[in-house]
């Protein structure tokens, strides 16, 4: 029986067709993966199923009946629940308050029955063996725990169909395994599961059937047994892709150190130590990768290295010169290139033009000035140069940067930072939310830059990216570096253990 079925579902945003006549049928009690590149229209499709967007045309059938959902609440009462990529939890409230949000148990029609609420959430937790304390506040939970709260939230509403939007993006490899197990557990409890993802490795592990979407159209639906990772990737992109970067990991001998961090410790605004005694170095012609589950101090490390956060303890050296507590502008002038974590809040100014953004952070360069005023002829020439050299696809050269897709915006940042010839590049999440084509391109650029004798510090939550690019991997856990491994001699599982804080004291 088809529990969910869409018939020629179409969604248009103005002239742009996000979903073009999508017909999918999902059987009861299966795990269905929907894969596609960023911008392929997966999320639009799910938002229509979940009542967040209204379809332009087409029909949705749930359990054989035609439905029209006007809001998520409608979808939930129709038996359809969704776990979003960015959790919809209120940090200052407790687990039980979040789980029962919108579904409170009241006494005397007005006041909330706290005791009964806690009791019912505790029962639910025990039923699914989720290992949570209903009284804990969300802000104190790890990402994996938050995800479980989000699932509980749906389960307590008695949904039969669960939709997951990029569920594993924020989990460690071990948490992913646990998550896959819970999905299978849920399936055997009679739930139907739809997972949106672009991580093909996990798709192969968990799906019963896989639907591939490209440019808003269904390319095909295949059974897991009848396909391979490479085939799926080709369906997603529409051409042959190489999943592995042609990177010849380098043996680093005794090349010169160009960047050194000594005993760096940092406290955050709440007075908690978020970085403990971090020491490492980057040598000439080396990519050093920093792996770790998000929230283990990587963001703070980047902020302190790039001058967004003040450092109290420890020193940072760039080629014998101390650069501790340099402001971002000083870092850039001292030949440290920075690719920030969040491209539109820290890397670019979305409402300014492409030209303005291609000089951002480098306004002082004499080469773009005419007497000490900015010379737009030179700046525009620079912009055109970047666009051609880095294959940045812009609709309108004179338009705002906000019009660019994630991949092209990221390429602009990379062009800007690399063309200013830094000796060290600090690259944070360089390919987050970027399409496969651009990922290939950005990876090649970074490897190429390394090969011309510079150092790269790569921070990423995508373990596969770190594994593919780095010559040496440092693993961070709870603000400390808990391991330094060689990617060629280490498996993903071993690094996963380190990321989860399980490590051999002597070896680590």
């Amino acid at each position, binding site marked *: 029986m088809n529990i969910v079925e869409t018939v020629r579902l179409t969604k248009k945003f103005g002239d742009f067709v996000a979903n073009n006549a999508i017909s999918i049928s999902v059987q009861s009690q299966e795990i269905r993966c929907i894969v596609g590149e960023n911008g392929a229209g997966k999320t639009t499709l799910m938002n229509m199923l979940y009542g967040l967007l209204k379809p332009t045309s087409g029909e949705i059938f749930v359990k054989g009946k035609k439905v029209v959902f006007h809001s*998520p*609440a409608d979808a939930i009462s129709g038996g359809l629940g969704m776990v979003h990529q960015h959790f*919809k939890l209120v940090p200052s409230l407790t687990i039980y308050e979040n789980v029962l949000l919108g579904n409170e148990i009241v006494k005397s029609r007005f006041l*909330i029955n706290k005791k009964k609420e806690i009791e019912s959430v505790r029962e639910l937790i025990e039923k699914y063996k989720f290992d949570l304390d209903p009284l804990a506040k969300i802000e104190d939970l790890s990402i994996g725990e938050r995800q479980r709260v989000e699932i509980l939230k749906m389960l307590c509403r008695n949904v039969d169909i669960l939709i997951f939007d990029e569920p594993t993006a924020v989990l460690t490899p071990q948490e992913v395994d646990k998550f896959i197990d819970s999905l299978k557990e849920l399936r055997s409890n009679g739930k139907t599961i739809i997972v949106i993802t672009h991580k093909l490795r996990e798709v192969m592990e968990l799906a019963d059937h896989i639907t591939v979407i490209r440019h808003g159209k269904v390319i095909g639906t295949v059974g897991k047994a009848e396909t391979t990772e490479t085939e799926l990737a080709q369906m997603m992109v529409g051409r042959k892709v190489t999943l592995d970067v042609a990177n010849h990991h380098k043996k680093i001998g005794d090349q010169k150190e160009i960047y050194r961090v000594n005993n760096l410790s*940092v*406290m955050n*605004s709440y007075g908690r130590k978020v970085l403990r005694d971090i020491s490492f170095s980057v040598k000439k012609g080396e990519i050093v990768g920093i792996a770790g589950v998000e929230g283990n101090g990587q963001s703070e490390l980047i902020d302190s290295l790039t001058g967004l956060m003040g450092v109290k303890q420890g020193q940072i050296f760039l080629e014998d010169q101390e650069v501790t507590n340099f402001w971002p502008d000083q870092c850039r002038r001292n030949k440290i290139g920075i690719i920030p974590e969040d491209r539109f809040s820290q890397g670019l100014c979305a409402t300014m033009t492409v030209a303005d953004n291609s000089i951002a952070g480098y306004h002082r360069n004499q080469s773009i000035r005419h007497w000490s005023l900015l010379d737009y002829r030179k700046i525009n020439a620079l912009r055109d140069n970047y666009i051609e050299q880095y294959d940045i696809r812009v609709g309108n050269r004179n338009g705002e940067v906000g019009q660019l897709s994630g991949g092209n915006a990221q390429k602009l940042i990379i062009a800007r930072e690399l063309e200013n010839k830094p000796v060290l590049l600090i690259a944070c999440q360089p390919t987050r939310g970027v399409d496969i084509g651009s990922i290939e391109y950005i990876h090649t650029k970074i490897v190429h830059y390394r090969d011309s004798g510079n150092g790269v510090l790569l921070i990423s939550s995508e373990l596969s990216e770190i594994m593919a690019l780095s010559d040496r991997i440092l693993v961070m856990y709870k603000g400390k570096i808990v391991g330094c491994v060689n990617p060629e001699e280490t498996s993903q599982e071993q690094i996963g253990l380190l990321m989860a804080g399980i490590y051999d004291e002597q070896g680590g």
Partner: protein
Amino acid sequence: MISNILFDMILYSTPIILCVIGGNFAYKANVLNIALEGMMLSGAFVSMFIVYFTGNIPLAVAGALVSGLLLGLLFSFLGITCKGNVIVIGLGINMMVSGIAAFVLRLMNSSNIYVKTINVSIFKVNIPLIENIPFIGKIISGHTVITYLSFFLIFVVWLLMYRTKLGIYVRTVGEDEDAAKSVGINTDFYKYMAVLIGALFSALAGVNLAMENLMLFTNNMTAGRGFIAIAAIYCGQGRPVTSSLFAIIFGLAWALSVDLSTYAGSASGLFNVVPYVLMTVVLAVVSIYRYKNNKMRGYKFE
């Protein structure tokens, strides 16, 4: 002397507390309502206007509350439904109320509205037994009905904020609107409710200020109390009890400025600045305390 100052502290705290506990909801719902001042002034004006012409006190209170609600609806409609800038709308409402009051006073050919026939002593409550306790009796007893009500309301608001759906939903809306929407909470409705509660309480504060204590309305008599309440809300981070404590501190400053100026002779005017200076200092101290560990450079760490 000390008991006088403490008595006045409670007296002057009342309107601020009312604005604070009402305004807390808007603060928690992430709608900055700076129109508390105008809503209070409208409560003061409308109540005195009705008493002046009818002499009917319950009608005056009801009229004041309705005027507050109307302003609250106007603010919500423009700021929430039409998504206007709430600061500009708030300022507009503050100026509009004071403008209308000035206009009506002008038509009445008077600089104030004063009702001689009703003595304000009818609003005073002397609590039996407690009024006989030396020192404390003098401070606690003899206040007006709304004053006692306002202290009781602190508890009610606490209950409303932490033990009812309304409170949880308002806080959810303020903290993460998407989270609220995803479980089917009508976010605009709760924002409206948050603003309207503030409007209602502020109007009541105006009634207390003009009718209950003085039987007199002069334009702009609220003298920035609405803004002081916003400062108290900010200092207490929207927690009803903590914010009310800050409101009482500002009430004390007000009492000091009034009581000390009677002894100051020619320099008495100088004491009027005490509450405002204190407000600035307290705000700065709270802010420094809150951000003392902030290591982020160049921008506030949220």
